[in-house]
């Protein structure tokens, strides 16, 4: 027995060394481009360091006057985030609940459709969406906001998985039947019974959508619409310092969102029996 314990202690030491080495090396690789961005945006003309670029980035007046494209892009992306999350939730949560309650035979089909975008590269989707968006522009106008229709398709697989996990963890059928037998209508069941019970799943589906929409470039750029990434790319041709600073700020924002999400997920995991 003593031998096994010693062996285990030795392995633990070796694992710790291995872990530190690998995390340090990969961490260095991850860090270098980020350091590059920080270094580039703090360069002062003629050498030395300055925070001028960052002061400009957070000075709304200057951004408004000198970098209008950044403001437009940011506004468009904010609108897209809200609209994408709204359409995604309004469409998916009731559909997935309904399928579980009344149409269990359709579950595989709904899942298939939701996972499908994973196998279709965004660039391919753009090719097929071009005629569809000609109609969207015809009926609804040329606003960048309508990109949300395509973004919902992009987030479908991730949102579906998050929501599916949430709905699997509760007994949808019993909850709905109990509410119905007490006289609740379907909207009440949806809003006051199902939604509160899957709120962590709804949160994580929304967070994933936010991260994806903030980073989207392909569709917006090829349809010549505005969003944050398109604006940053455009700005890069004119003023690389401010463009790189904006890109880094967006990256940090997304990191904070996902880091916060890891705590939401952990809170859910803690009161659920662990598998295996």
């Amino acid at each position, binding site marked *: 027995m003593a031998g*096994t314990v010693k062996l285990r202690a030795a392995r633990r030491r070796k694992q*710790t060394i*291995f*872990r530190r080495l*690998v995390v340090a090396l*990969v961490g260095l*690789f*991850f860090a*270098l*481009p*980020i*350091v*590059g*961005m920080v270094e*580039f945006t703090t360069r002062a003309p003629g050498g030395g360091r300055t925070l001028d670029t960052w002061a400009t980035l957070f000075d709304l007046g200057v951004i408004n006057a000198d970098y209008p494209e950044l403001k437009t892009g940011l506004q468009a992306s904010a609108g897209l985030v809200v609209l994408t999350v709204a359409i995604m939730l309004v469409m998916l949560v009731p*559909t997935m609940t*309904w*399928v579980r309650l*009344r*149409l269990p035979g*359709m579950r595989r089909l709904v899942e298939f*459709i939701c996972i*499908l975008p*994973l*196998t*279709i*590269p*965004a*660039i*391919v*989707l*753009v*090719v*097929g969406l*071009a005629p*569809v968006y000609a109609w969207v522009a015809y009926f609804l106008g040329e606003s960048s906001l309508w990109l949300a*229709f395509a973004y*919902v*398709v992009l987030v*479908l697989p991730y949102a579906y998985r998050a929501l599916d996990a949430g709905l699997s963890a509760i007994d949808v059928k019993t909850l709905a039947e109990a509410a119905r037998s007490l006289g609740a209508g379907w909207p009440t069941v949806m809003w006051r019974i199902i939604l509160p019970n899957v709120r962590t799943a709804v949160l994580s589906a929304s967070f994933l959508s936010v991260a994806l929409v903030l*980073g989207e*470039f*392909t569709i917006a*750029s*090829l349809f010549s619409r505005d969003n944050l*990434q398109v604006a940053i*790319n455009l700005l890069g041709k004119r003023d*690389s310092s401010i*463009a*790189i600073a904006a*890109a880094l700020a*967006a*990256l940090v924002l*997304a*990191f904070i969102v*996902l*880091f916060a*999400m*890891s705590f939401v997920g952990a809170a859910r995991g803690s009161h659920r029996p662990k598998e*295996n």
Partner: protein
Amino acid sequence: MGALLGVLPFFAYTAIFLVIPTLIVVVGAFLDGKNRPTLGNLSALAQPQIVSAFVHSVVLSAVTAVLGAVFGALLAYAVSTASEGGLLRRMMTSLCGVLAQFGGVTLAFAFVATVGSEGFLTLWLKNIGIDLAGSTWLYEPYKGLILVYTYFQIPLMLIVFLPAVEGLRPQWREAAESLGASTWHYWRHVGGPILAPSFIGAMLLLFTNAFSAYATAAALISQGSPIIPLQIGGTLSSEVILGQENIGKAMALGMVAIVAVVMTLYVVLERRTTRWLGR
């Protein structure tokens, strides 16, 4: 009948924004400019610049899938030895979540700021006598793009592969050790074979990830279209030669075909994986 009405909005929406666009690509690849059936678009794929774009894309995706898988797997194993719910694991998974998603413009700019002609690493290397600034290596598919793509492949590998590594039970290792197995024996006969299907599956996922990527290359490369997504993007934004209006759709169909083959392999492997790791 009433029950079906409840799923109607979902099917209507996905029909318009997912199914119809897919059909437009698939059918359009076989139509000419006047909507008559033709195989001309497919035979136009034999043009040298399109063939070379496909080859570049496949090689680039394969190389970065292997690099990302190897380094990402090492990282995943390293992270899995840290305490569960600890800061390191949480930081690493969130960081990788962002870095895997946030390719695109940000990443292209980051690399330009680091190893571009004015990048800090370039300037620093110049001081010690290595000149990177003179060449356009960063913008070439087999050099710069491999480096940049590997940057988002490693984090994706961590996210995809970590659950598999966590599925390795300590009891298996203890059982092997109690029978006298060394670390090498354990990985060769127990850990390796169990993880192999997930590893290859994750590698296939990485392949499609790199193969589909458009934004990073588009933001990085301003001249020429060395990879297939850029070629397709080019057909959308520029004038196309008469008689080849739908060549972009044919290229898109080619991409879908390659992704479909890879994803089919992935699904087959995934079935094998679930047998042992019980996910």
